[in-house]
């Protein structure tokens, strides 16, 4: 039931996104701009610094992810249907899960398109692509879950656009630190023992978020 409702909601959101084509396109464009701006910032004598790739990659995904999170509940809010969706569904979990999956889908595709661009712009190559991709996937799962939760909590808050990053970034700090470290270690071809702790930390945080976020969401939103 949960999965079915989640899938129905996700399909609805995907259909809306496919028709309006706004959020995803802007996310992509914004992430591209981020990379360009970082390249300007880190340029040394006309050459981009390859060692900045992990940082540029993660911070770009963090920033462009925020664009997506800010628009996650926009359709419901503008149409005034959020309360209806919250009341008709059997529980609030499908709503949160579908939004998290939508965010994950958007940020995942952005990441896959962005990665080659960053590598080309910064003239770098991935030493161990599977490890970097695994770290990015773990990071995006956490970002999507937390983003859906914070996005849902802040729907009716004034100055939401300003406040959301203020909450989201400190809460995402463990994933950002671990993700950047993992990417750096992967680039340096570090031994597996050095990586294990970081991977465990990211997986643990993701598991915590998946377990706790739906409960917190329900506690806050329920009347």
């Amino acid at each position, binding site marked *: 039931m949960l999965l079915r409702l989640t899938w129905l909601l996700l399909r609805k959101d995907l259909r809306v996104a496919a028709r309006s084509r706004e959020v995803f396109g802007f996310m992509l464009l914004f992430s591209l701009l981020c990379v360009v701006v970082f390249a300007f910032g880190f340029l040394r004598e006309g050459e981009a610094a390859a060692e900045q790739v992990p940082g540029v990659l993660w911070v770009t995904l963090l920033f462009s992810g925020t664009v997506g999170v800010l628009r996650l509940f926009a359709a419901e809010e503008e149409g005034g249907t959020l309360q209806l969706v919250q009341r008709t569904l059997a529980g609030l979990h499908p709503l949160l899960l579908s939004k998290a999956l939508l965010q994950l889908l958007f940020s995942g595709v952005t990441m896959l398109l962005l990665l080659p661009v960053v590598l080309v712009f910064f003239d770098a190559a991935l030493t161990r692509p599977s490890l970097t991709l695994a770290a990015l996937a773990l990071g995006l799962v956490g970002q999507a879950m937390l983003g859906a939760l914070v996005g849902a909590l802040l729907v009716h*808050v004034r100055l939401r656009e300003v*406040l959301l990053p*203020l909450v989201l970034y400190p*809460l995402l*700090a463990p994933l950002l*630190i671990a993700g950047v470290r993992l990417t750096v270690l992967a680039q340096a071809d570090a031994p597996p023992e050095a990586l294990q702790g970081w991977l465990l930390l990211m997986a643990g*945080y993701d598991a*915590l978020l998946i377990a706790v976020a739906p409960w*917190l969401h329900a506690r*806050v939103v329920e009347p």
Partner: protein
Amino acid sequence: MARSSSPRPTGFLALLSVASLLVFAALYCVAFVAQPDVTLGIVQKIFYFHVSAAIAMMLCLSCGSLLSLVDLIAPSDRVDALAQSAIETGLAFAVMVLTSGPLWARKSWGAWWTWEPRLTLTLMLLLLAAAVLGIRGMAADGTGRKIAAALASLAAPVAYLIHVAVEKWGGTHPMVLKGGGIQSPGMQLTFRVAMFAILLFATTLWTLRFRVLRLEQRILAIRLEFSAQDVRRSRQGGPT
């Protein structure tokens, strides 16, 4: 109604006086009882208030997070006021830690700021607490409280993970308490007095804020009661 905000706050005034006296005693000890550190010199004396403030901050913020969770499970105005005042007090002490820390770091490590694990964690805690309080202030009354409670209860496990992450990231760092920084009895006495003074001072601030918040809740309740009475009266008057 709120008992703790009775018009004669004798208990609170007693607490305030004892805390003030102890803070002065701690200042006296720091200045005259504790010997200057052999290697670090006089700047080491920041330690007494710095470490005490850090412990007070951790205690306040942990209590705030835990109480927020309690308020989320079983909503109660009293617990909510306790949680909010705890987070506010914790934020004040975080500012104190992050002001005294760099002053000391400049002398002992040669830099105002390093991305040392505890510094990083304190900064992140400050940002989290400020964000939680900011959202509470921005949202409408009923929702802001719940949102802040949810975020504050999520903040405790996240703070632990940040701690783990920055420890792994930062590597080695100076450990004052384990490194044997305080050996002489004068220093130990001073540290104990300062710690006690700061913790009592934190309790005073916390109590003060708690009382103010409870009074605010009471005023709100009275206002609601009055407007409800108004509505009833106008209904009884019948349509004119």
